[in-house]
């Protein structure tokens, strides 16, 4: 930012910026850090309970499953984010250059695991079905 917004008399500009930064209170900085912590790209829990849906009369196992989801912002500096790919770094830089043209890298699953569900059908037959890529085991910036 300093490279693009540098004023003709760069020293004054720098002083001004420093002064404005120093005026920021310590409490607001703490808030900022906390906010960053919550908004950073990470895996969040989301449990779907078959039992609470009242489906235990046909689903034998499991009782439910931890679906998880990825949530958070992939913002600069990208190296502080979880599992950022090389492409995510390039995406971040292009976003910084043209924020309205190029989006930030997205927070998405980097590893997906399968689950299996054991259930009865209408004819009392039992089915074991595997569902691939159903559980986000880790998230990262893409």
């Amino acid at each position, binding site marked *: 930012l300093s490279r693009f917004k540098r004023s003709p008399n760069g020293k004054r500009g720098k002083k001004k910026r420093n002064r404005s930064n120093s005026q920021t209170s310590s409490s607001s900085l703490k808030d900022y850090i906390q906010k960053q912590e919550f908004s950073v790209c990470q895996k969040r829990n989301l449990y779907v*309970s078959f039992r609470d849906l009242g489906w235990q009369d*046909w689903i034998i196992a499991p009782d439910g499953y931890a679906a998880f989801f990825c949530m958070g912002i992939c913002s600069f500096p990208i190296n502080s984010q979880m599992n950022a790919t090389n492409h995510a770094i390039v995406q971040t830089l292009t976003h910084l250059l043209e924020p309205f043209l190029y989006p930030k890298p997205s927070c998405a699953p980097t590893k997906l695991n399968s689950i299996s569900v054991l259930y009865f059908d209408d004819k009392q037959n039992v089915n074991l079905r595997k569902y691939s890529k159903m559980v986000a085991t880790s998230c990262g910036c893409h």
Partner: protein
Amino acid sequence: PEHSPIYVDNHKGQTVAGEEISDVDRAEIQEDLLLLLGLHRRPRPAFQEVQSSAPQFLMDIYNSMVDDEDTGDLKLDPEGVGSAWKDFNITTVDKQVIDESDLIMSFINHGSKLFKELELPRSQLLWFDLTEVPMDENQLDTSLRVYQGYAEDALFDYQSVTLRIFQLIGGEGETRPDDIQLKEVGARVLEPGYVGWLTFNVSSAADLWRMFPHSNLGLFMEVTSEGGEQLVPGQVGLVDAYGEQARQPFMTAFFKQQQLKRPLPR
């Protein structure tokens, strides 16, 4: 049902029940989950027999599955930690089929309740309902499992005994004994002293029943002595349709998705 079916992260490392949702939202969530599971509607089984052999087989497989670290896919535990290997006599070939399958269906036997007009011992009739089998799945293999326990008689001491599995073939709706033909689909000379499951490949019969449900007249298990004398299965320790629930004959079909399905609309 008064609880929320969705539990979410509260940002403090805990998972808590989501906000209460309306009946309309709840119905939509149910519909979305059913679509995700590849079902058009919620199954309504009339009764559940979790203790019988067919569900037990799949429960054992379910409990023996582990995540493949490289692919994230579910595979049968290579160390054979689960009981499926031992209890259901799962071979290395079976393991390969199980690992490849996307869907495994286990069918309970309805044979004794059907075909009352057939002059065959009803305890030895096997009939499996394949009407719920999805047509868009590739059938990899279908196997019939029959349990051999301890023999009551000492028949094995002086002669060999054979178990034969026949497919009943007849015209559409024909269940008169004269119109029924028996086609052998598998045979096994019983090993004296063996206790465990015997596996027969019945893929060709299952393929036919899947394509032409009306041709499904089931299977018949016949036990004969060396001299051709017909025996009651229980005499040589075989469990028939009237035997212990957990040891009754059952059929298992293994399927793999034919191609990548179109993305779900929701």
